[in-house]
Structure formats: C-alpha cells, structure tokens
C-alpha cells in the first residue's frame, strides 16, 4: 500500500481545473512529479497539505485521511517549496529554534549534519542567501525532523547544474535510508537522473503514474529519451 494516496482530487478555478488526480507515493522510492508550467503540480501539492481545498477527492497519509489527522501526519512529512523566503530577516538559527519545538522527532544531529553538508551559515538570514542556498535551507528544515516522506515543490528550479546534481544525490541518499521523496519539476533530466516512479500531469489531468521503466516501455519510441517522449506527449502524440 502507498504511504501517501491521492484519490480523485478535483479543484475547479475559472481558468483551470484539476481533473480527478490520483496517484500514490511509495516508501523508499523517489517519485518525480513532472509537467509543464501551469499543469497543476503546485495545486496538487498544496492540496496534499490542506493548503488548498479540493472540490472533491481526498488525501490519505500512512493509512489515515489527512483531514482530521493533520497534526500527526504533518509531523511525519517534510515539505519544501523552491526558493520561498520564510521570515527573510530572521537568522536561520532563530527560525530553527522555534520550528524544532513543534516536532518531537526533531534530530539536532541530523540538523548539524545537513547544515554542514549544505554549507549553510546558521547566523545568516534567508534574505542573505542565494536562490540555491534558500532551497537548501528549506530542505534543511524538512530533513531535520526525520520526515518519512519529503514532498518538494520545484526544489531544483533556480539551482545551478552543480547544486542540482548535488541535490539529486541527496534524494538518492534519503531513499536509501528508507524515506519516500516526491518532487515536482519541469526539468525532465532531473527525473531521468534519479526518479524510480513518474507521475506525469498535463492540463490538470494525470497522464501517467507508474515506474519509470514501465513509462519508457509504454510511451517511448526506440532510442527516444524521456525528454523527447514527454515533449511529444505534450503535443498530443501518445503513440509509442
């Protein structure tokens, strides 16, 4: 059974609709959530955290519905969203001091480990960090409370190729430790590098949700890269 199950999520906006989005996130696997800008990735992820209220559908985490079990479930999930500035003028150490108290699973050892690994200076404020370092700070918060599932919205956007590569290696490390990593991206090479599963969304509808090999077998033409396959599918050509 998936540790996170998204079931038939529907959200209607005047100019956009999330159409019965369903997929699962498996433990110990990396899932790439791919789609072009405006495909519905962020809306889906926000619904997974009850930040957006779907018109219908539900999200189950660890076998329990999110609604009604928010507090317990959020303790076991780490969330990071790109380069958003939380409290831009507060020092990292001050933000961490406050946040850590909300988690009984907060691990100071892990915090120090990732602080060092990401080469972050905890005396700095988010406003003083580069875009890449902001992503790492957001990840630091998510990783330091031993989250079993990491849900990351566009974690690689704005990063240079070196930092992106470094980050994808970290995902692999976390997977090896048993965590589930779910990250959205519109950069298909990120998926090619580390994802075990692919959830492909287009115009608010899930086109495919399956292991990467199965996706390639079903949709890719001979000698076609994943990027070429998706570009072709985005044009409406689904024939392998």
């Amino acid at each position, binding site marked *: 059974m998936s540790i996170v199950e998204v079931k038939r999520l529907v959200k209607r906006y005047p100019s956009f609709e999330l159409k019965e989005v369903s997929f699962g996130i498996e433990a110990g696997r990396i899932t790439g959530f791919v789609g072009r800008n405006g495909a519905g990735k962020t809306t889906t992820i926000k619904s997974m*955290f009850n930040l957006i209220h779907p018109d219908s559908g539900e999200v189950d985490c660890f076998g329990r519905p999110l609604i009604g079990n928010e507090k317990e479930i959020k303790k076991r999930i780490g969330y990071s969203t790109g380069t958003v500035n939380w409290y831009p003028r507060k020092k990292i150490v001050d933000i961490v001091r406050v946040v850590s108290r*909300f988690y009984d699973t907060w691990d100071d050892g892990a915090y120090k480990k990732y602080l060092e690994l990401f080469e972050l200076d905890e005396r700095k404020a988010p406003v003083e960090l580069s875009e890449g370092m902001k992503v790492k700070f957001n990840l630091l918060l998510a990783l330091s409370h031993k989250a079993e599932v990491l849900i990351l919205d566009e974690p690689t956007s704005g990063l240079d190729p070196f930092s992106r590569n470094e980050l994808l290696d970290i995902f692999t490390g976390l997977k090896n430790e048993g965590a589930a990593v779910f990250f959205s991206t519109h950069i298909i090479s990120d998926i090619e590098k580390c994802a075990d599963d692919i959830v492909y969304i287009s115009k608010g509808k899930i086109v495919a949700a399956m292991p990467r090999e199965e996706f390639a077998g079903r949709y890719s033409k001979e000698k076609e890269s994943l990027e070429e396959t998706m570009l072709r599918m985005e044009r409406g050509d689904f024939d392998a």
Partner: protein
Amino acid sequence: MRDIMRKEIRLSASPLAFLFIAFGLMFFIPGYPILCGVFFVTLGLFHSFQAAREANDIVFSALLPIAKRDVVKGKYLFVCFIEACALTLMAIATAIRMTALADAAAYRANPLMTANLFALGIALFIFGLFNWIFVGGFFKTAVKLGRPFVTYIVIAFLTISAAEALHHFSGLEPLNAFGTEYIALQGGLLIAGLLAFALMTFLSCKKACGNFERIDL
C-alpha cells in the same frame, strides 16, 4: 499553544507591536484624547500583521504540525497578549490618576475625558472592535489587510469621539468622575467593556477559524 505563542513572539511579531505597548502610558497625558493611545497600540499590531504577511508567516504556520485553526488562535492569543500588556499600563496610569493625582490641577482642568474605570472600559471595547473588525476581517482572506483596517479606523474614531463627547451631555457627567466618585457606576461600565471585549473576541475568533479552514493559501 505555548509553541505557537513562542513562534508569534520570536518570528511573526514586529518589534513595533511591543514598542507601541508604551502608548498605554498616554493615559497620563492631560488635555489629550487618551483613547488615541488605544488606537496607537492597535497600529503596532497592524504593522505586525503586515510584517508577518511579507514574511509568508501564515503559509509557514499552516505547514507546521498543528491544526489550521490553531494558526488563527495563535494570532488572537498574541493580539490579546499585547492588548493585555497595554491595558496593564493604562490601568496603572488610571489607578495613579484616581488616587495620588486625583486632585492634580492639570487633570481637574482637563476638558477632555479623564482616565477612570469608564475610560478603561472603553479601551477594552476598542480593543474588542480591533479583534472583531480587523483580525476577523483579515482571516477572511489571510492576505488583505487594507479594508478591515480602514473599517476599524473609522469605527474606532467614531467610538473615541462618542466617548469623549458623552460626559458633556447633561446627566452623563458621572462618566467623567474623578477619584472614587461614582465608583459603582464606573466599575459596572468597566465590566461591561470587559464583557464586550470578550464577546467580540470570542465570536470573531470562532468565525475566523471557520473562514481560515475554507480559504485557499
């Protein structure tokens, strides 16, 4: 709730919210509409909401392992904390003016409202208006601050003007009593202010929790 309050004080609050508590001491100033001090305290709180919005505080809080309604309750708790601090200063100033300085010429010759229990009751009423109109209004969107604050300003200044004017009407002079004159009436008005504050804050918080559950962040 202790952790949420710690977050409010250490991360979300603007230093002005704490600094403007000192406006509670305006209750000492003779010849000045003392209830403006109440408004200045809420101005500091407004700035705090503005600063928190720019720091993405609401979304950050909603992502913490707490129920969404606790984000709202945390804000109300912080606002009430600042209001209670300011009210304490106002109460100290009032107590001194009602006792040691009851016959001070500067206060006796003051044509404006004097600092007494009725003034404290009105201060509580204005704080209640802030919680009801501004804080409740903010949580309809968790983004827009302008309209609820302007509405609050208009109603708060109408209230201040009415409170300042009342004791000039025949028969309402006891509202501006000095020392311990009309203490029973004054005490009753203070309790009425306290009840109005509690009712407005409670109902507004309850409604804001419901609104916040429904909005998309």
